[in-house]
């Protein structure tokens, strides 16, 4: 089963294509990293996959053929958006209540245990938590829904190194321990080295590279994901702005 499948997918905002001709098949059971520079179309692709945005061209289905944004798709996907939006004036307990109410499944015991472990008091207002705690709360709420696919948009961009590490450890535990498929975007490559085993590389709205990390490394003779990504991003940059044009 593919957790995300797109064919000829495109999204246009006004006159500019944020994403175009995107064809992908991300298999289940992976931690898939969506990487690329700012403005490459990462958020657009994730928003399309979780149904927040509808495509301008092509199609996207999730969890083995469910239409993105359909009730069945929403039921199986948990999304943590960029900057982990929470209702800042509500308490942690209220956020748990609301998430439980809005979903068919909610593992209250898991959420409680996670928050205890993190030392997040239930009566604290979400807005009064540290950045790392807010990110962990958003992740806990998402995982307590027991999703089959967890989608994270730039989850660690705003976090300090320790908070980043803790956050990624939680993601990895869910992926390896519970078989949750993960799709996360980041422009910080070092975070992904440890966790990602599937890679999608975007630049300027187009997919440049997609596949299992090990296969890609072997095929392209690179030692690390970071080196591989750098090579491809440089190459993509040159294709869009060939040196000959500069000299002409």
């Amino acid at each position: 089963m593919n957790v995300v499948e797109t064919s000829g997918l495109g999204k246009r905002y006004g006159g500019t294509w944020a994403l175009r001709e995107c064809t992908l098949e991300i298999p289940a059971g992976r931690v898939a990293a969506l990487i690329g520079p700012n403005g490459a179309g990462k958020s657009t692709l994730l928003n399309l996959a979780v149904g927040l945005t509808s495509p301008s061209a092509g199609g996207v289905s999730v969890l083995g053929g469910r239409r993105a944004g359909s009730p069945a798709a929403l039921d199986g996907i948990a999304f943590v958006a960029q900057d982990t939006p929470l209702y800042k004036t509500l308490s942690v307990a209220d956020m748990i209540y609301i998430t439980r109410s809005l979903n068919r499944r909610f593992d209250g015991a898991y959420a409680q245990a996670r928050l205890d472990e993190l030392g997040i008091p239930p009566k604290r207002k979400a807005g009064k938590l540290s950045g790392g705690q807010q990110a962990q709360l958003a992740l806990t709420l998402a995982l307590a829904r027991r999703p089959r696919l967890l989608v994270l948009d730039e989850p660690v961009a705003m976090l300090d190194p320790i908070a980043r590490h803790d956050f990624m450890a939680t993601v990895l535990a869910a992926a390896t321990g519970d078989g949750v498929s993960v799709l996360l975007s980041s422009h910080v490559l070092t975070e992904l080295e440890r966790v990602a085993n599937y890679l999608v590389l975007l630049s300027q709205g187009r997919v440049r590279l997609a596949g299992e990390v090990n296969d890609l490394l072997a095929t392209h003779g690179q030692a690390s994901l970071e080196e591989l990504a750098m090579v491809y991003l440089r190459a993509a940059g040159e294709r869009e702005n060939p040196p000959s044009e500069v000299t002409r």
Partner: protein
Amino acid sequence: MTALTLAARPGEDDTSLRPVPWRRMAGVTWRQHRIALAGAAVLLGALAVYLWIAGLSLNHAYAGAVACQPASSVTCQGLDGTLDGMDNFLSNGFILQVLPAAIGAFVGAPVLAREMETGTFRYAWTQGFGRRRWALAKLVLLAAVVAAVAGAFGALLTWYYGPFVGDQSLGLPRTTPLTPGLFDLRGIGFPAWTLAAFAIGALAGMLIRRVVPAIVATLVVSTGLAFATAGFLRQRYLTPLLTSNGNSVPDNAWVISQWWAKDGTFAFGSYPPNNILNQYCATPSAGTGKGGGPGNWGPCLMQHGYTQWTSYQPATRFWPFQWIEGGWLLGLSVLLIAATVWLVQRRAA
């Protein structure tokens, strides 16, 4: 860090998903909007206490004045005077006119504007409940609560203002129940206007996506609609009645306009031009000049073939007008809420 494991997922491959029950939105909506609702409740509650206390003495004085016999006695004149003295800043109802718009702006406008402004819509719209159902449930619930609270407050207003539109021979400003300022505070007017303002606020919030501008827009649009209705629309709900020479205009009718005509054609509006006055009524006995009221020149002009026409809405049309206004406001509110839900459904992140 210990890895907490998740329990197995029952019914994971359930293809015919049963949707998350609607009733769950009650608790969600309450938790998210209890501060706005409590604010509205405190404001209306404080006003209600004041109106209740003031209304008790007002209605008591009114009942005493009505029951007093004979009306010309010194005692009764005294009671009339007491009643007359109770005229206060609330009498014309203008101050309370801001309440529906304010409730709409401060409860309705932030519902979606805050989600859009803070980005929490990305959380709310990706939960299993589904964004269309989420918006529909939330708006209908809040609309029902707002309308119910406003309905209770409207009943209190109807009672409070009873003496103002009662026996026209007693004190207090002689007011028709159709008068702008009181009409939409009494009967079903108050909840209907509050509901409409809430719906305007919800749509403005979704269109503008910023809390403060949405509040301002809601205040402006709601107030503008109320002014347009009171000034132009309401008098056309039913064809006004016409009467000539002012003889048969009932005491508590709502006079729409008055004009003078001669030989079946319009002559002038409220005040005769000098040439007409000089031509027919220039003699001192008829009383002339800019300072003279219709009492002076009116009878004179009537002798010369002029007719004064009055168009008015009789006070007996109070309830038909209430139902007409309540009906279109309810229809408008339903339309606006439907439009808001539609926007939530199709809006791209």
